[in-house]
């Protein structure tokens, strides 16, 4: 009797632990995998057939179609440089240099991957791209992220509450194994005034 009870407890514990680990890793990704540069994180291998089971499962759960390896690399930022969650009630400044790429785009999403808007029905293109960005001579790129209009490069925030940033670099060498070992810097995310 005691043996059966012990076995049942062990099996129940095993089921909870095993399924819990699956649920967490599929939702959040393996904490050690991927390419992390500052606050930005990308999974270059998710865009290849060599994706590990965690990346395959994460794709199936999120529904995102990952960028192919030779096509581009998408970085996600969940927090600012101080580790605080990004929130639309604050202003942010993105400063820094970008690695060589043919094209870059910056867009805000909510945590589910929907375009950041007050209502899903109002979703539209509010991305800032290298085609529309102004770059000063000899200076780093500066991008203002705010719900109110700003001079210079301004990426408007139309939603409310928490958001995530997506910085996609197209035709970049950043995902190659050589670059991955010693990555160049990306944009710093600095928080400004909050309302």
């Amino acid at each position, binding site marked *: 009797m005691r043996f059966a009870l*012990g076995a049942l407890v*062990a099996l129940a*514990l*095993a089921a909870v632990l095993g399924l819990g680990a699956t649920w967490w890793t599929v939702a959040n990704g393996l904490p050690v995998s991927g390419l992390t540069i500052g606050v930005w994180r990308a999974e270059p291998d998710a865009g290849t057939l060599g994706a590990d089971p965690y990346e*395959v499962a994460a*794709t199936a759960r999120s529904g995102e179609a990952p960028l192919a390896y030779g096509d581009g690399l998408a970085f996600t930022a969940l927090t600012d440089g101080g580790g605080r969650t990004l929130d639309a009630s604050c202003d942010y400044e993105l400063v820094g240099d970008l690695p060589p790429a*043919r094209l870059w785009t910056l867009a805000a999403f909510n945590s589910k991957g929907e375009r950041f808007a007050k209502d899903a029905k109002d979703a*539209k293109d509010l991305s800032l791209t290298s085609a529309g960005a102004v770059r000063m001579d000899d200076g780093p790129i500066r991008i203002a992220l705010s719900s109110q209009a700003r001079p210079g490069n301004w990426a408007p925030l139309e939603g409310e509450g928490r958001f995530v940033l997506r910085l996609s670099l197209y035709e970049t060498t950043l995902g190659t194994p050589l670059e991955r070992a010693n990555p160049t810097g990306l944009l710093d995310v600095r928080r400004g005034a909050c309302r």
Partner: protein
Amino acid sequence: MSLMRLAYLAALSLVIAGLVHIGSLLGVPRVATAGPYERLGAVGADGRFAVLADEGDGANLLPFRDPAFVTAACRFDLAKGPVTVTAALPSTYGALSVHSRYGQPFYSLTDRAATDGGVEVTIYSKDDVAAAEIEDPAEGRPQLRIVSPTPTGFVLVRLFAAAASARPALRELAGKAACGPAVTRKLSS
């Protein structure tokens, strides 16, 4: 219950938990109901390209899709034979990517690889490709043959819109992309 026995049970449950974790992880793509392939089923993209909405709720069909791009999608099924995909990729930046059933891209081309502004790719299943190598005549336009790891999958054509005004023309261009049964090239008589 002795301490030994407790430790034994804990170790046993950890080992089984590891097995459960691996098993359930490998099973996730098979039971997922909202993967990219399933999501594209909602826009009628079977055997033809459907341009995904740029505004409103439909723009959120594929999560984290880059809003600066006009995207068209087509789901293919190789059970009915090879599928040929043709798409025009303008030099502002256009990319074609072929994804497996579970979303992993296994082939991609950008506009740099385009000849006369377009690309043509034929997707074969593992069984068909060997026969095609033998039977297809070598003449005709150069043709890209790729082998799909899964019998079904989807193709995305993504065209960069540098400005909102470029969108209508790009949507039209993306909609003209074709994805249908492979054309068999006959030797000219």
